[in-house]
């Protein structure tokens, strides 16, 4: 129960202190560990597992993608790619606010997978899209809502950073579930999450474009003084090359020609070379980009380090066992259980952002869920869609907070929420559709990749397996 108190303290600490989430997580974990040691609940020796776990993070292959995505986002912000893409797509559509909104949404879909992070997308779209929407008479809440939603498209369109990190967390959770149940399933990997997310992401993109178009149609026609920014030939060529490069990158990752980390390295390298060739990445600009890349990567990595510390303390306190017991005791079908767990993740999204949820909540709630629900790919896609929602949920959704800060949004939160509602409804429609039709997460899946369905297990057997799962791992056993 102490662990649950710690989780509540984390939420309160983040909201009330204004301290960096990483500092709150580390502070709460340290306080919990100290309390546990002083009361004799936590043997001090168990905490010695922490340095080893941190070294595991430092040598994690997948996490190498993190600074690469950050670098890509920063380079995209400095290069004229976004501008060329936006002008070209807006030029294809009939003139008016609807075209601008659709072009902005489309730009989010194209930039998202390339820069991988919501924060970088917000910065890019705020600079390129928001001023043009304003020039075409789109009101402030609608502008902010569009930039926020478009910035989260990269979350579900592979190969995004959130997708990679969730893939890694799902791998850990599924390994625990497969080991403890003795199922013969192949453990899910990032590639499976990529493939599973493609159809739902496509569906959400289509719905978002439709909502943007309809929202634009309701707005008054563009002002007479709105700029008519036709792209130059060079911009059209750059836009075509960028889309082609993105499709090649996406296709190569989807087909398994190279890993997501290598795709990120390729993207960063091409943009970097482009910056050097065009002279936009001169000495001072290059130093500024590298400084910013390190600071932004550090923020994400700090969160990971802090969450690793907290989850170790929670595990020592037996919180994972408590949550596992709750999930085991949940009545109803697989659908009901998944819906309840997703609801809990959704609730935590009111105070935690997607990265914090991946690092803190997923390792606790998903392993017991995957013991009861064998379809890991389906669960991963549902969690991904829930995380995307979490970026947009007022008042603390990360994309919303970023947009309000970057655009210096002066309107009310209620107006922004009203502008967001159609997009959120579209998002929840996709979530509900995937929930009700799990095959959407399995489109194009090969027979060999399928997660094996397990025969129903008795409650008694389930409890025994959970007990086995939660026996202390070797690194947590105190030295004799």
């Amino acid at each position, binding site marked *: 129960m102490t662990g649950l108190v710690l989780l509540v303290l984390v939420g309160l600490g983040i909201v009330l202190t204004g301290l960096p*989430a990483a*500092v709150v997580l580390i502070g709460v974990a340290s306080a919990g560990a100290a309390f546990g040691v002083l009361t004799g609940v936590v043997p001090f020796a168990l905490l010695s597992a922490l340095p080893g776990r941190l070294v595991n*993070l430092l*040598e994690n292959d997948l996490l190498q993608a993190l600074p690469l995505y950050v670098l890509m986002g920063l380079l995209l912000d400095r290069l004229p790619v976004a501008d060329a893409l936006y002008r070209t797509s807006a030029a294809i559509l009939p003139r008016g606010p609807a075209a601008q909104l659709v072009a902005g949404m489309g730009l989010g879909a194209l930039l998202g997978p390339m820069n991988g992070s919501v924060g970088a997308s917000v910065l890019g779209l705020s600079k390129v899209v928001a001023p043009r929407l304003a020039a075409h008479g789109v009101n402030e809440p609608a502008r902010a809502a569009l930039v926020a939603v478009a910035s989260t498209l990269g979350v579900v369109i592979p190969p995004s950073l959130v997708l990679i990190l969730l893939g890694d967390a799902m791998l850990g959770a599924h390994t625990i579930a497969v080991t403890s149940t003795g199922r013969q399933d192949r453990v899910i990997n990032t590639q499976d999450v990529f493939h599973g997310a493609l159809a739902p992401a496509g569906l959400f993109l289509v719905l978002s474009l439709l909502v943007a178009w309809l929202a634009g149609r309701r707005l008054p026609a563009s002002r007479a003084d709105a700029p008519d920014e036709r792209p130059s030939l060079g911009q059209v060529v750059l836009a075509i090359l960028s889309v082609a490069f993105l499709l090649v990158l996406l296709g190569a990752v989807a087909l398994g020609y190279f890993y997501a980390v290598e795709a990120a390295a390729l993207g960063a390298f091409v943009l970097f070379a482009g910056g050097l060739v065009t002279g936009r990445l001169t000495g001072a600009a290059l130093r500024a980009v590298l400084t910013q890349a390190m600071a932004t990567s550090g923020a994400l990595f700090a969160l990971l380090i802090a969450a690793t510390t907290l989850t170790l303390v929670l595990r020592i306190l037996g919180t994972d066992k408590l949550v596992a017991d709750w999930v085991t005791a949940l009545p109803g079908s697989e659908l009901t259980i998944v819906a309840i767990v997703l609801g809990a993740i959704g609730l935590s999204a009111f105070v935690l952002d997607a990265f914090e949820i991946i690092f803190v909540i997923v390792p606790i709630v998903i392993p017991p869920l995957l013991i009861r629900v064998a379809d890991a790919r389906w669960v991963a896609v549902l969690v991904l869609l829930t995380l995307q929602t979490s970026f947009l949920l007022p*008042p*603390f959704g990360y994309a919303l907070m970023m947009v309000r800060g970057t655009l210096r949004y002066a309107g009310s939160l209620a107006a922004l929420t009203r502008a967001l509602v159609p997009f959120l409804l579209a998002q929840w429609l996709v979530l509900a559709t995937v929930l009700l039709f799990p095959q959407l997460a399995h489109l194009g899946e090969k027979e060999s990749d399928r997660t094996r369905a397990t025969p129903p297990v008795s409650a008694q057997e389930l409890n025994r397996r959970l007990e086995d799962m939660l026996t202390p791992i070797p690194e947590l056993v105190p030295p004799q």
Partner: protein
Amino acid sequence: MMARLIGGLDRFVAAVLSGGRWLLLPVVTLLLLQWPLRDIFRAWSRDANDLGQWLFALYVAMAFTAATRAHTHLAADAVARRYTEQSRRLIARLGVLLGLAPWALFVVIGGAKLVIPSLRALETFPDTNNPGYFVIKLALWLLAGLILLQGAIDLARPRGSAG
């Protein structure tokens, strides 16, 4: 005297981070090279991966403190922005004093069992026997050491100065 010491520490940390930011370029290059080395040349892919791995470890070990200095850590200040500047500074100091500093000290002391033997043996990568694995473990001390130094700087910095 104290101010000069803190100023010196501040410049030292800034210099370390200023040098460390360049590590990202070889990390990008090495990770990119992995693909052609593995699929076209069928050689040295693992070596590129090992080298990239320890450069990455050093890079992210420094990045935590870089984020602290640049104020890029993720934070929700919708409520805290209403506090006075003095209260916010006090909360920030408490965060360092009760959260980051004891944690970093624990990592330095608790990590000694991992770092020192690895350093003494100049531990190599287990799968390839390539040199440099000890650098990854040493990066743990770099991570915690920089957090401690930055914490000391932030705590000792005179009130009202930029931080």
